[in-house]
């Protein structure tokens, strides 16, 4: 790789590393796996850098590599350790954290872990990475309608968790 390309890639990697790592963390809920996933994504980007840098949206390219790697890894090996619903309820009701933030994090992590991988990916891309439905569909390689339906299902499921459920008056206003 030429020096100019090398510098370009370095800038790209340095500026995207934290975001890719955080997306991977929300997808895997595992610090080590997230680091591996973000690193292997940038490795694949480096190997195709001449093509990536010419792409209209290099970020979309990197996101797609990350999601494909994650989903294919998930297909190869399903996770076996998922927090049980009863554990979640105990976490929320049993011993509330004074600040409340830790409880919310735990519940959300467990709620995310209970989603099928594609639904979880849609939630992370749409509601954390703030991608549009079209961008999310392009990243996942599916139709916009599929993104909408997966998001709808995921939200319906997340709403059943106490920390994310709307307050009663908000339910009645619907």
């Amino acid at each position: 790789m030429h020096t100019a390309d090398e510098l370009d890639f370095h800038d790209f990697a340095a500026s995207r590393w934290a975001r890719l790592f955080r997306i991977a963390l929300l997808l895997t809920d595992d610090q080590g796996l997230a680091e591996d996933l973000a690193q292997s994504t940038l490795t694949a980007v480096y190997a195709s850098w001449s093509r990536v840098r010419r792409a209209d949206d290099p970020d979309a390219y990197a996101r797609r590599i990350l999601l494909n790697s994650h989903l294919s890894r998930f297909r190869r090996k399903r996770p076996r350790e998922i927090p049980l619903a009863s554990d979640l309820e105990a976490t929320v009701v049993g011993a509330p954290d004074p600040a409340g933030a830790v409880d919310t994090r735990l519940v959300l992590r467990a709620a995310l872990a209970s989603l099928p991988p594609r639904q979880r990916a849609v939630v992370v891309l749409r509601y954390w990475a703030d991608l549009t439905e079209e961008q999310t569909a392009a990243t996942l390689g599916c139709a916009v309608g599929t993104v909408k339906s997966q998001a709808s299902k995921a939200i319906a499921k997340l709403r059943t968790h106490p920390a994310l459920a709307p307050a009663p008056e908000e339910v009645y206003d619907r």
Partner: protein
Amino acid sequence: MNAFDDNRLHHALDEVASPAQVPPLPYQAIVRDGARRRRRRRALGGLTACAAVAAAAVLATTAWSRPEAVSPTAPAATARPAPRPSPSAVDLPVRSAMPSGELNGSHWSIHVVDYREQGDGLYCEEWKIVVDGHENPDNNGSCSSDPNDRGGTLNAGVTIQRDPRVASSALLGVMFEGDVAPVGAVRLRVTWAGGSASAPVFLLPHDDRRYFFLAVPYAPGHPDAYYNARLAFLDARGRVVPSEMLQVGGQQYSVKPFVKQ
């Protein structure tokens, strides 16, 4: 999803992601592995090109002259085999359409809105629930986008409601659906405090996925907004079939219906 939910979810996701310590960028390892990967790909590309050249040379030296006339031959004696369900699916009923039923006095059905052609079959991509002739826009479902993807698609807590534009809208029930029933399962059973129900696992033509749809009525006036449903796949003898999918979440689903008052 309304703006309240958007903000709340974004904030909650941020609370998970933001405090995480971002490790230092392993730049040297990325460059080393990336360069190795690129070299390997180029080497493979070179091998492919060499193989193509060699094959062309072999073909050129062994080519035989074209016959003057070509006479038609009879079709091959062995016809292309028709797709057959896997042995584990032999006893499952094949339905020509998605299921429908009655729940709390209303008729519900599944309306497939998007198919995808693959191989010699049509695969369901996306469906909607239709209640009393009205599509509920909030209740879309999607089949697995990849027929080979055996990822769990069991969904608990999908509410079946009338069209929200209908003033008398009320909660009808909860649906469990998916297309990855385990091998050997012929029924899905759900048991809740108020009773039990089951529905057959079935196949769709030209589709080797094992579908299940089971709708459970919601009893108005339930003392608690939350109630638990226990799910189990059963084999032909009524024995519980172990399911990795049902172990996710501990077989116990907390269902909170949305009640419109």
